């Protein structure tokens, strides 16, 4: 009986610890455990400046996916995005890399289009808008190019 009690206590302790471990790695580390849902679309940018894997993809400020990977193809940055299933992207959607706040991190903003055609999984967003380079902008102002 006593030995059984000991094992129950140890079991509860282990479960508690594993629960905490799971909460931290799934909630904060954004670990993908139960497979990946949604579909992937691609977009080419002249520069991906500062965008990182795992950055959020948003439409109208609502998170609908995340950046899955960034690779160099034909000297352009190809950004792979995983979009939640259920969200349909029109063929003339515009993808732009934006900054949260002045010093915040980069995220991907999609502006929905009006076309009837929907981008299929694995498809490509043709219309893209590179991030604004704040340093260039400040340089332009300082050296009076405006």
């Amino acid at each position, binding site marked *: 009986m006593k030995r059984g009690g000991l094992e129950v206590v140890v079991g509860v302790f282990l479960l508690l610890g594993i629960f905490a*471990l799971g909460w931290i790695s799934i909630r904060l580390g954004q670990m993908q455990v139960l497979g990946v849902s949604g579909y992937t679309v691609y977009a080419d940018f002249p520069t991906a400046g500062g965008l990182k894997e795992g950055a959020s993809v948003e439409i109208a400020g609502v998170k609908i996916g995340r950046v899955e990977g960034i690779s160099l193809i034909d000297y352009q940055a190809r950004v792979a995005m995983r979009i939640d299933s259920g969200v349909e992207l029109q063929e003339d959607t515009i993808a732009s890399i934006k900054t949260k706040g002045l010093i915040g991190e980069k995220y991907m903003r999609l502006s929905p289009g009006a076309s009837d055609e929907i981008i299929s999984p694995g498809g490509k967003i043709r219309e893209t808008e590179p991030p604004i380079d704040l340093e260039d902008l400040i340089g332009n102002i300082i050296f009076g190019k405006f």
Partner: protein
Amino acid sequence: MVIFLGSALFYTFLPPLKWRRMIARIHFIGAKSLLVIVVTGAFTGMVLGLQVFYTLRKFGAEGFLGSVVALTLIRELGPVLCALMVTGRAGSALTAEIGIMRITEQIDALDAMALNPMRYLVVPSILAGLIVFPLLTAIFDLVGIYGGYLVGVKLLGVAGGTYFGEMETYVDLRDITQGFLKSLSFGLLMTWVCCYKGFYTSHGAEGVSRATTQAVVLSSVLILVWDYFLGSVLL
């Protein structure tokens, strides 16, 4: 000491493993330390929430409170404070227990009964340390984050969504694995030092007290030193 660890590891991979002893050790090092860990975790998180809030407010950046609290806890304070608390609570007892078994010749008795004392005493402790430390650290982090939430959000008025949202943005899986790598190594370090000191105790009751003191001091110092080096390598 290295030979001691080496032979302990050797017996770890050599069956049979003493499961009952290991469960008892997990209970002793882990489950009984839970209350201490929860209390220290909660107050560490609350202190962090308070201090970081007032520092960040000078820059008008209270929104970053969540990420600062979480990163500090997950990368540094969680593993280190957790290891120090467990060393103080369980490490000392571990050394004393093995030390007393040594001076009362119980270890020799085990040897005489063809029970390998290494396998019976040391291996379960080290394995239990390796299992327990990351779990306790996870609980510490979790409780600490909610402690920071309590102070930052409920008392000082940061938005709850901002607290967790910024946290999710800035904490990477890499930070988390780094924190748990640390706590794993601390688990090995603490059980290794404490078992070693207990195993080679001599000179009666005085020897036990000396071994216990040395074990706690040495493991605490080693944990802090190792933390720095591991941190600088992993960063």
